[in-house]
């Protein structure tokens, strides 16, 4: 459900209030609706088609992270800003009462984009965290989104499509240096890999002091941020080990990680069916990686609103 309106924050908030009142009336027989809100989630989509995908993703995220979603996307070339409001509702299994979260979709002309930050301030839910999700590789370059950064408690990027990993990481480090809390979904994609590697040390298949070297292999024509992250993560955990990054004849992304001791070695290699294969040091098994859908990655990131020291160390290394 939704109504179009010319952008005026007070008007939008009033429309939202009316939307809630109307839903309460419509759902009165089913016990009304329950409004849930834990944060303001601002998403900058790349274009109108991307905004549609975002809306679907946000609909899924709302179940675990109910929020006021503000979806921004560019449209037209002028300075105009248009907004419409909507509600995402779902009915928990076995319940009659619906749970709803609210959303605002803002279309900004190219020259109007710089004005968006001003309008966002009153649209934030008071006293709750603001998470900004900047989609697309272009977001990892200085540009028109920068005025939005100071509004957010956490800014989420995705460096999977960038062609210059080092520049993207430099950009993130600069933001971090300015006190912004940043996250990168391409780091989040490594959680399954990292967990498999960490478990080898839990199970004492390897002892940290024994590891002399680590080789991170990536597929694709240029080094990816995930290879850089993985190498940096190993380097911060095992400062005495020699860590190298090499390319492999493989699809783009992380291909394998090999840890060597003076007498043995162990390799984790990406296999089929979203699994990794662990081989060496007396181990040979396959482990399934967690889902790497955008929804799953965002669920993980939205669950961490405070400091993320492991990521921050890897980013800085």
């Amino acid at each position, binding site marked *: 459900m939704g109504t179009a309106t010319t952008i005026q924050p007070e008007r939008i908030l009033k429309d939202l209030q009316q939307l809630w009142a109307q839903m309460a009336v419509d759902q009165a027989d089913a016990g009304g609706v329950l409004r*849930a809100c834990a944060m303001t989630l601002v998403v900058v989509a790349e274009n109108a088609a991307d905004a549609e995908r975002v809306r679907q993703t946000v609909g899924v995220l709302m179940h675990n992270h109910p929020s006021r979603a503000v979806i921004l996307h560019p449209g037209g070339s002028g300075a105009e800003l248009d907004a419409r409001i909507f509600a995402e509702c779902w009915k928990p299994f076995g319940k009659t009462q619906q749970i709803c979260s609210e959303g605002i979709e803002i279309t900004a002309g190219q020259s109007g984009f710089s004005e968006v930050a001003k309008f966002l301030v009153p649209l934030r839910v008071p006293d709750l965290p603001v998470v900004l999700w900047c989609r697309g590789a272009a977001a990892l370059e200085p540009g028109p989104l920068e005025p939005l950064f100071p509004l957010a408690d956490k800014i989420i990027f995705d460096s999977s499509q960038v062609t210059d990993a080092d520049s993207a990481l430099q950009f993130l480090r600069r933001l971090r240096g300015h006190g912004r809390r940043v996250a990168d979904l391409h780091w989040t994609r490594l*959680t399954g890999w990292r967990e498999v590697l*960490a478990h080898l040390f839990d*199970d004492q298949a390897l002892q940290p002091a024994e590891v002399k070297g680590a080789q991170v292999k990536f597929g694709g024509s240029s080094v990816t941020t995930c290879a850089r992250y993985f190498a940096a993560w190993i380097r911060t955990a095992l400062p005495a080990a020699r860590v190298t990054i090499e390319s492999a004849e493989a699809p783009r992304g992380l291909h394998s990680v090999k840890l060597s001791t003076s007498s043995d070695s162990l390799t984790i290699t990406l296999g089929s069916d979203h699994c990794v294969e662990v081989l060496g040091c007396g181990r040979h098994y396959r482990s399934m990686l967690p889902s790497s859908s955008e929804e799953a990655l965002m669920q993980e990131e939205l669950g961490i609103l405070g400091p993320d020291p492991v990521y921050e160390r890897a980013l800085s290394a």
Partner: protein
Amino acid sequence: MTEVRNPFADPLRFERRVPECAIVIFGAAGDLAKRKLLPALYRLAYDRRLPASFAIVGNSRTPMSDEDYRERMREAVKQFSEDGDFDEELWKRFAANLHYVAGDVKDPQLYLSLKEKVTATGQANILFYLSTQPSYYTVIVDGIGHSHMAAAPDGAWRRLIVEKPFGHDLGSAKELNSRIHAVFREEDTYRIDHYLGKETVQNILALRFGNGIFEPLWNRRYINHVQITAAESIGVEGRGGYYQEAGALRDMIQNHLLQVMATVAMEPSAVFEPDAVRDERAKLLRSIKIMRPEEVDQYAVAGQYKGFRQEPGVNPDAQTDTYAAGTFFVDNWRWAGVPFFIRSGKKLPKRVTDIAIQFNQAPLALFGKAAGAGDGEQKARPNLLILRIQPEEGISLLFLSKEPGSGMRLRPVSMDFNYGTSFGERSPSAYETLLVDAMVGDATLYTRQDMVEASWTVIQPILENWNNRRFDFPNYDAGTWGPAEADTMIAKLSRQWRNS
């Protein structure tokens, strides 16, 4: 052995790592194993929480092969898994780790067979789970001891999970503890109280000590009284034989509800570590005022529903309490004079377990009749903080609000927090939480010897009184909130039960 910290740990993103181990379940064909343990272990596998290598070795008297046992458990998991579709592929991988050894727990040969089976799985760590009749606990522990299965090689561990009841009175609890300690150290003994594994019970600690607003009010100055209710709408459901020996006081209040009370009333621990938290719970249990014999009739009520004596397996003259209520006081600076009313019963109007914390009324009835009171009453309604444990885990705060419109009419409203709706994520079952805790060696939610003995000490005068008298049972109808004496008990202290 020195523990080496894992430099790759990322507790913010990684689940707690369950170490490779074998779980030996005694009573593996019984109800608890079928309804709770195997579904919980399967769910852990589903959530990728179990290690790549683990083993479950079941034992009961029924002769069956590994395959037979797997088939039985497959049906049980399908039937009793609380949510999620059954995944045949996952089950195949999970079931490959399921083994079975038939045998009588009194037969020393059984333990040698179990030892052989566990050795064949290659697991160095063993978690023993006593899911049998309580009368076998000491026999099994002795058997484990005599077979040297409790002796762990360097770097490995042996742990024992014991299901309640931990004894049937203070003396038997001490005896059981002493027999267990002959084989297992206290730090390797995990007495399971599944109530403590429930999300809301754990959330009591988060609510109290993670927020700044509640703890300043959490004392005799602001809290009028606390009601803890564990009501069941069903009867004994075929467990008449067991239940007539236990009764509500032993079955619910001595363990679950006193532990819940301890969680509600304990002091904050200096750190959130197993022994620090358990020290505070134990301290609170030791602070509960022990009733003098002459006080029992005033502060405790027993009840039995009409029809209990006609249940299968129940003695037609049974004196069992299918309902028990008690008034407890805590002798410490924070709670002096604040009554804690605890009740539990079967065949009550509905299934509900909750804790209601009633705050003192506003000092001045500023709004008079308008404040939601009935005609002739001038008092404002007190605020209630309700911690719901089941069926729907959550927290509600009741307060007064002005009704829309002219005039100053007040109406009580409820501010609700519901686990299921506020966190879309599925809550793990209590057994999932507690099994993982035992495997990783976290005893925070398990009951320690001193806690068990302290709670029996609280109950002992009531037990002695009730064991030495004949009640005029039955004294309440099914579908009511228990005997009238329970209403009288609370009314004598100018309070009333929340029967809603």
